[in-house]
């Protein structure tokens, strides 16, 4: 139960997902800033600027923060564990002094 809750709170994504999230955050925040400035300047209203900025940032948070399946499409492939690793190691340590 606790593990389940922890993984839910951590909301892990894979490495490709991390790269994607980073790109989305940077591009869209720059775009949001520019667009909200231009929109407010065109309409001569600071309220338009900050409402646009705030709402689109909230949308961005919904897109980026939860572990959507699109961020988990490239799970890390681990190599299969070696069965005889302990035996080989012990043989090696024996082999070195001789």
């Amino acid at each position: 139960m606790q593990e389940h809750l922890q993984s839910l709170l951590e909301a892990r994504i894979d490495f490709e997902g991390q790269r994607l999230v980073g790109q989305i955050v940077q591009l869209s925040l720059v775009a949001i800033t520019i667009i909200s400035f231009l929109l407010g300047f065109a309409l001569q209203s600071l309220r338009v600027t900050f409402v646009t900025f705030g709402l689109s940032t909230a949308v961005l948070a919904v897109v980026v923060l939860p572990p959507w399946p699109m961020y988990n499409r490239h799970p890390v492939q681990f190599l299969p564990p070696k069965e005889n690793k302990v035996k080989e190691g012990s043989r090696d340590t024996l082999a070195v002094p001789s």
Partner: protein
Amino acid sequence: MHSLYSRFNNATAFLSSCLMALLAAIALSSFLFTADPKGDIAIGSIQVLPGNARRYANKRQEFAFVNFNVTADLTSLFNWNTKQLFLYVSAEYTNQQGVANEVVIWDQIVHREEDARISVAGRNKYHFRELSASFRDVSPAFYTLKYNVMPYVGVLTYGEAARTPNPVPFPEQQQLS
């Protein structure tokens, strides 16, 4: 970025940078608006009357009473980054010691663009006194209407909307009957 907290941290760190850039851009955009409205100020009458100084009851002092008319259309000063205007009428004169004085005798705050067409027949709101207690031998005074634009984000800017074409001399002290 792998966990929710690191994603949140990463996004909000860049968000704060973007917000700073946005605020800086808004502050700089104020310099694109270079309105310099002009109005009129006319002095109706000036009286100089004796009175008691506020702090020392037995010290005699002269008070000037200025009636003035101010008309100006300052709506062009309102842009998207203007919070309010501070208008003030000041008297500029040189006193007996040769010190240039600027005394604010009236002011008004304009919150809205609709209220920025001002037409005021007013009298000085604040005591108009000379530091030497007398307006005798004081140079004639220019009266000016000045404004201070207060933005939501950015720097305060000052300007002068009107100035009396000629300096107005102070009259002799009147005796209270």
